[in-house]
């Protein structure tokens, strides 16, 4: 079978258009789905969700074809570029809209379309009773199309279009139940915080245009050698700002927790598996810039290290199952950022962890959705307990995800996260110790909070609410099948792609080859230390949340717990640093505008008006005086010219 597929792929590559043909269709199919559902109105209610799901799978099918075609050719040639149309022809600056299909983008295409399609299927069950199902699927399709555009774009500007597209889809889906004001506020918050990051990306693109005279990947990569390091550092830092906004990295991480207001499949797809990892993609895609700007690269690693610690601490204190998972997502993306900031040694692992994380985190979110489905949308983990007995499939699939994120061998996380920890310990001076220890300790804390979540939900005594009375039950097959598929991925993907080095070799044409370096601590020692820490974390969680009684109401806890519950006071900090001065600024600007600008403008306006009234008298309606004016004009101009010449 596989030889047959390879053969088909070989044949179609001979006509070199084939891969790129698939390229635009990949995006066009889900986009068409979104258009049909949004424009078609109620007529599409009956078949809409199924069609959206079908289109998403079709996109996945095309992705597979493109993947096979890429795999069939030599590694050096694994990059095709298709020009779609002249986008902005403006004199010397001629930007074409094109798609770039290479090993990096196709890896993302596979993740987006596969996990995306599974979540479409899951949503068929999860959203079956929602009156606005059609709109939901339209937005999902819009998201898939935008995300594919983001990763397939051949220029930063086209990437920005996709970037804004996923931002829009995310906004629409977080606020999908916007009749609830809190949810609408959450959507707005995500929107605003993302704007800050988007400004960074927009400025980075402008700066690229100023520095390189072009904004497509090929020209920018080629121009890096000739650019000043100051310009590269500025571009790198602005790109990082953009990445922080989209990927919920410090200091723009505050929106992700609130974004959990959206329907759970959305949290799984957008706010765990795909969109939030776009920042990592951006950094890896721009590796040439970051390699030319070591300071910006260091900033990426620092941001990653801070966020992974921050997310881990917050995750320990959250009682809302989705918010705990969101904190975990933040922390895991911190790992990826850290890896991306380590340079060539880390790129492949950043993307590898991104892919495995996409599987196990999406699986766990779907599991959380399944739990909520069976528990009347309860999200407080202190009101769960003992659910493993009633929801066997959810329990097992979630368990596999849990083992994967803990990094227990041989599950996926072990292969990707341990590599990042190893890579973080490579280097000289203070860096390996700071980054390495942060990554190592983070793994222990991750084990604690994920186990806490797992045990509080599925083990211990039942602490269900009586009102309404709970009758936990397993979810329908449309929901559990995607969970099972993702669980298989969580369990096996790392084992298949990791130790065989398939994935790092696959990405080499994009990320470049790097020499192997030894960490400052021997690898076996590191591995043992990681596993011991994980075991300690999980054990502590078992003692406190599995064996012991879990209080229904959260205990007061110490200062750190209280701080972590409030996201380490991030919102208060934002208010104090940004909002309060902002409000002051606006008030003073309004005052200036009223008093000075308006005064000036009014004065000028009055002056113009007065001049107008005077001039108007010349327009007296008599043809004779009009003719006289003409004559006077001719004589004046002629006289003046004569004098001048």
């Amino acid at each position, binding site marked *: 079978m596989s030889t047959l597929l390879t053969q088909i792929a070989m044949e179609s590559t001979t006509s070199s258009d084939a891969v790129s043909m698939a390229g635009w269709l990949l995006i066009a199919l889900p986009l068409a789905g979104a258009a049909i559902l949004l424009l078609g109105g109620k007529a599409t209610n009956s078949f809409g969700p199924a069609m959206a799901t079908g289109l998403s799978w079709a996109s996945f099918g095309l992705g597979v074809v493109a993947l096979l075609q890429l795999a069939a050719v030599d590694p050096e040639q694994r990059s095709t570029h298709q020009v779609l149309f002249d986008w902005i022809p403006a004199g010397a600056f001629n930007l074409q809209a094109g798609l770039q299909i290479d090993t990096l983008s196709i890896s993302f295409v596979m993740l987006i379309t596969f996990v995306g399609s599974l979540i479409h299927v899951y949503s068929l069950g999860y959203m079956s009773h929602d009156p606005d199902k059609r709109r939901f699927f339209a937005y999902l399709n819009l998201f898939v199309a935008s995300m594919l555009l983001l990763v397939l774009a051949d220029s930063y500007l086209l990437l920005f279009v996709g970037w804004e597209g996923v931002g829009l889809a995310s906004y629409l889906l977080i606020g999908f139940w916007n009749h609830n004001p809190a949810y609408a506020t959450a959507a707005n918050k995500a929107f605003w915080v993302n704007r800050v990051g988007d400004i960074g990306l927009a400025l980075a693109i402008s700066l690229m245009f100023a520095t390189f005279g072009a904004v497509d990947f090929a020209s920018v990569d080629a121009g890096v050698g000739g650019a000043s390091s100051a310009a590269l550092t500025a571009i790198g830092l602005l790109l990082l700002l953009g990445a922080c906004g989209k990927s919920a990295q410090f200091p723009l991480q505050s929106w992700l927790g609130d974004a959990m207001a959206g329907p759970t499949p959305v949290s799984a797809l957008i706010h765990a598996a795909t969109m939030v990892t776009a920042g990592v993609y951006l950094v890896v895609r721009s590796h040439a810039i970051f390699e030319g700007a070591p300071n910006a690269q260091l900033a990426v690693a620092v941001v990653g290290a801070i966020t992974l610690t921050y997310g881990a601490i917050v995750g320990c204190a959250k009682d809302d199952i989705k918010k705990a998972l969101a904190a975990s997502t933040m922390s895991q993306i911190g790992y990826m950022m850290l890896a991306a900031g380590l340079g060539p040694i880390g790129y492949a692992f950043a993307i590898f962890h991104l892919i495995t994380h996409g599987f196990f985190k999406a699986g766990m979110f779907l599991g959380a959705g399944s739990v909520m489905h069976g528990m009347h949308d309860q999200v407080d983990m202190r009101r769960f307990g003992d659910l493993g007995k009633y929801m066997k499939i959810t329990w097992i699939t979630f368990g596999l995800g849990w083992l994967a994120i803990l990094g227990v061998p041989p599950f996926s996380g072990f292969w990707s996260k341990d590599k990042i920890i190893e890579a973080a310990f490579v280097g000289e001076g203070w860096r390996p110790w700071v980054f390495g220890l942060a990554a190592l300790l983070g793994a222990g804390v991750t084990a604690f909070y994920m186990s806490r979540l797992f045990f509080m939900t599925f083990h211990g005594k039942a602490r269900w609410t009586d009102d309404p009375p709970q009758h936990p039950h397993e979810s329908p097959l449309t929901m559990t099948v995607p969970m099972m598929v993702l669980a298989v991925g969580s369990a096996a993907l790392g084992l298949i792609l990791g130790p065989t080095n398939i994935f790092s070799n696959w990405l080499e044409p994009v990320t470049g080859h790097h020499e192997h370096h030894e960490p400052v601590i021997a690898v076996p020692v590191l591995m043992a230390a990681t596993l011991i820490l994980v075991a300690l974390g999980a054990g502590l969680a078992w003692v406190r949340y599995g064996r012991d009684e879990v209080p229904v109401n959260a205990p007061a806890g110490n200062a750190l717990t209280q701080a972590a519950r409030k996201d380490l006071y991030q919102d208060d900090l934002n208010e104090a640093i940004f909002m309060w001065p902002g409000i002051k600024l606006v008030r003073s600007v309004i005052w200036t505008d009223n008093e000075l600008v308006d005064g000036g403008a009014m004065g000028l306006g009055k002056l113009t008006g007065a001049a*107008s009234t005077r*001039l108007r008298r010349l327009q007296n309606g008599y043809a004779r005086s009009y003719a006289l004016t*003409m004559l006077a*004009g001719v004589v004046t101009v002629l006289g003046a010219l004569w004098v001048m010449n």
Partner: protein
Amino acid sequence: MTTLLPTAFTVAEINYWAILPVLIVFGGALIGVLVDAFAPRSSRHSIQVALALLTIAASFGALVWKAVDNKGATLDGAMIIDGPALFMQGSVLLLSFLSVLLMAEKFSSAGADAFTPMGAAVPGSPLEAAATRAGWGTSEVFPLALFSVAGMMIFPAAGDLLVMFVALEVLSLPLYLLTGLARRRRLLSQEAALKYFLLGSFSSAFFLFGSALLFGYAGSVKFSALSQAITTAPADVEGLLLPGVLLVLVGLLFKVGAVPFHQWTPDVYQGAPSPITGFMAACTKLAAFGAILRLAYTGIDADRWDWRMGVAAIAALTMIVGSVLSVTQTDIKRLLAYSSVAHAGFILVGVLAFDATGVSGVMFYVLAYGLATIAAFGIVALVREGSAEASHIAQWSGLGKRHPVVAGIFALLLLTFAGIPLTSGFTAKFAAFAPAIAHGGTTLAVLVVIGVLCSLVTAFVYVRVIVLMYFSEAQGEVRALNPSVLTTVGLAVAVILTVALGVFPAPVLDLANQASQFIR
């Protein structure tokens, strides 16, 4: 003197394909005269409308099909069909097609159209009342408009001063008549027509006088000969050149409404029937700028350092007076008239760039402005209080609530006039100002600064109207009539093109760029 006379008479070569579009329009106009004489009154209007539209469409077809491949001087250099001429002719045809659609509007109720039932009847006389009762209409407007269109097509393609003068008269005489044919406020309309005629004749006299001086200077009326003479002419006739150039320019600047030759504009725009005002504002301005470009770039360009400052001063004055005076206008048509004066100043800045990009910028500007203007006067004709047009600006308050579509379109057009980005007005201003800055030195840079400041003043005027339409309470019984299919199509096309030229101007800009080379 003997050297000036040809030794033997040679037959001029005529490339009929090149001038076919013009001939078609003349032919259509002549048939229109016959139709008015012989067709029964009941079907006259529809025949005339169909004939006019068909003629314009056929002419456009001939232009695109044949004339574009037959570039060059023809009629012994009396007409020059080159890129700018073709672009201007095509634009005139497009704009006049839309204008005819609006002129044909009769509305559902009798007596709601723009034209008097009988132009020859004295206003308020029993004869007029009888004609109104009989439901007559002035179907002569269509052949008259076609004659004018033919003149406008020759104007930018003229190869010598005499043909240019004939074209000027051919396009002007029908307009004088059309101006006096308004159905309502007929006295105002006739006064406007007479003023237009008197001042137009006055400016024609300037043009003729200037032509005579230039003939004396160069020994020929041909632009090519004039251009040559400027470098070779003996010093004893040098004194004829500058007055000649200036007087000819005055004749043309009168047509575009440049200060101080602008004072007819508000009176005539106000008095003429609204569809005619739109036609006049869009097409005359376009053709006249075509002629100015032709004269300035192929005839007197070698002498430009002498007269450039004079025209620059006129441009500055035009922008300032046009925009400042628009501030105190209370009549919507007079407001648009002063806005058209200000726009003439903006376009003149582009003309003075003396570069091919300036030519294309000006051509784009007049086309974009023409489309928006026709649509704007089309809207003006729709908004009524009772049977009369609601011409006072105060009557437009609250229109946004009663007629959101009409007010929305008008607001869009006003924003276009103001040159807000993403409208064609912005692209046009940019296309005209950018070459001026690039090729014009300090003088034009100063003009561009003045232009931008004046845009600001006019923007205030336009936004005030928008604010009035949307944020004031409605007064009186102002309503917008329901237009027929013809007007709807005309308005829709004009508005869609206006939006398209703003959002996606590249194809038309490219076309203008390709068509920006004059043949001398």
